[in-house]
């Protein structure tokens, strides 16, 4: 059974809780996924293509039914209280799918009908902030502008939870940076809770507080970005002269700690200090996905792999 990481447990009730959520398809199994997201935090949902990210989001939106497990959003069962839950939810997908002839103003009027808490002034302020012309027709807007329009529309009712499913996928790097920058500003200024699914890890580097990793339908880990960065390190040291040729070696560890440095020192007498370097999120993901190719017993336990390079 998958364990919910202790470092995510807080006193306040979580906005989103998944407990042992499974979904079976022919040739694919989303297997007992559990994690939670606390209010005011941004969680990156990452993993390679086919990991099950979109399936998981479809389950949250009740587009799919879980084969097993429960999903609780705002403390409510997401299926039994679907309308109530969705009133407090914002969603942006990979494509916005607004009518091509609609204007940003039309989108605002359309959304206002469904959300009792819709704030038109706030929506217009987002449009202004994101440089989306209110009277701009969707078919004449750039892809980046449509994505920003979708973000504005998803946040115009002050959702307690914003679910983003690969919103930056397909955007060129410059526009992507612009969209992520706009999102970062809003998250920073307003403390929104966000679940951000993406395979573009650089989007999350300065945005996410928590990272949940899926691969092949399995939860690899769900933990804070700080914890992840603290325990994944590259250690580089110089070997002493001897039977083997002198040179620099390095290992990547997912269980970094002072003891590990000492152990390396004992096992491989080094001529100099062991250099410790942080890994990028992309490097960490590569290690986690590689280690998680077999179904994990626990997300945390997958982090203990040590690889020589």
């Amino acid at each position, binding site marked *: 059974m998958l364990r919910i990481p202790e470092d995510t447990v807080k006193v306040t009730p979580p906005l989103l809780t998944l407990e042992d959520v499974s979904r079976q*398809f022919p040739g694919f199994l989303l297997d007992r996924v559990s994690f939670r997201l606390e209010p005011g935090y941004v969680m990156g949902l990452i993993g390679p293509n086919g990991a099950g990210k979109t399936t998981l989001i479809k389950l949250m939106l009740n*587009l*799919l039914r879980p084969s097993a497990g429960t999903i609780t959003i705002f403390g409510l069962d997401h*299926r039994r209280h679907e309308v109530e839950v969705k009133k407090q939810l914002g969603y942006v997908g990979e494509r916005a799918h607004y*009518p091509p002839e609609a204007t940003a103003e039309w989108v605002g009027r359309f959304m206002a009908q469904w959300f009792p808490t819709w704030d038109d002034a706030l929506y217009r302020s987002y449009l202004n902030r994101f440089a989306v012309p209110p009277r701009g027709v969707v078919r004449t807007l750039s892809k980046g502008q449509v994505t920003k329009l979708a973000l504005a529309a998803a946040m115009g009712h002050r959702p307690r939870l914003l679910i983003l499913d690969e919103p930056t996928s397909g955007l060129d790097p410059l526009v992507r940076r612009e969209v992520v920058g706009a999102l970062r500003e809003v998250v920073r200024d307003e403390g929104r809770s966000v679940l951000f699914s993406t395979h573009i890890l650089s989007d999350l580097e300065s945005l996410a507080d928590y990272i949940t990793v899926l691969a092949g339908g399995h939860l690899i880990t769900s933990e804070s970005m700080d914890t992840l960065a603290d325990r994944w390190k590259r250690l580089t040291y110089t070997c002493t002269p001897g039977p083997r040729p002198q040179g620099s070696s390095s290992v990547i560890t997912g269980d970094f700690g002072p003891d590990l440095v000492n152990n390396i020192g004992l096992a491989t007498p080094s001529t100099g200090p062991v250099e410790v370097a942080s890994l990028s999120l992309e490097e960490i993901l590569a290690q986690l996905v590689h280690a998680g190719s077999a179904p994990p017993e626990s997300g945390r336990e997958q982090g203990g792999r040590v690889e020589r390079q």
Partner: protein
Amino acid sequence: MKLSSLLGLEVSAARRFLRSGVPVLGALTAAVTALPDPRVPREFAAVLVVVMGMYSSMVAHEDGAGGRWALLRSLPVPPEDLVRARFLATAAMLLAVAGPGLLTLAAVGAVNGSSAFTPFAGSAAWMWAVTFGTTLAQVGYLTAAYFRLGYRRGYSLLRGVVTMGLVFHLTDQASQSTSPWVSAHPIAALAVVLGGALLFYLLCYQYSASHFPDLEIGTEVAGQ
């Protein structure tokens, strides 16, 4: 207001198709098939336009509305409203395709009198009624299948050669029919065909609305 808003969103998905001229082509074909001695085989021309129009509209509709499904389902909308809007929009699009042709037939009837459709069995009006009824029933079936099976599976299973062949067969039979009962009771014959199709359409709607909580859309993209 809310339902009309949803309806507008649904219909807008097919707006490009409606602008494509298929309804106008339908009207022209209806005029040709209503001529006393058409040079084009009337059943072939009329059926081709209507059936191809119907399939094109379904494709255009589902391409737009299918992709829009996640957006719609993210809204706090009772699922029954989504089903209602989809069925209303689909029927409206079929009317938009067949409507001009039917109006043209009515105009021909008004100009030439009932002699244009006598005998009624085998006439252009009877053939169009059968075509419209069959396509209405089939569109209802396809829409219910969309809710039941999802976009791609519904597409591949039900929009195939078999269903196309069924429509061709029925309309061909209608165009060559010399049934005395149909000719003697044209209004009753129309009521049976169109009423039966409408009833079937409503049953499809009722089925989809009542089963919606158990249905899933989009299972074809599992594992993404």
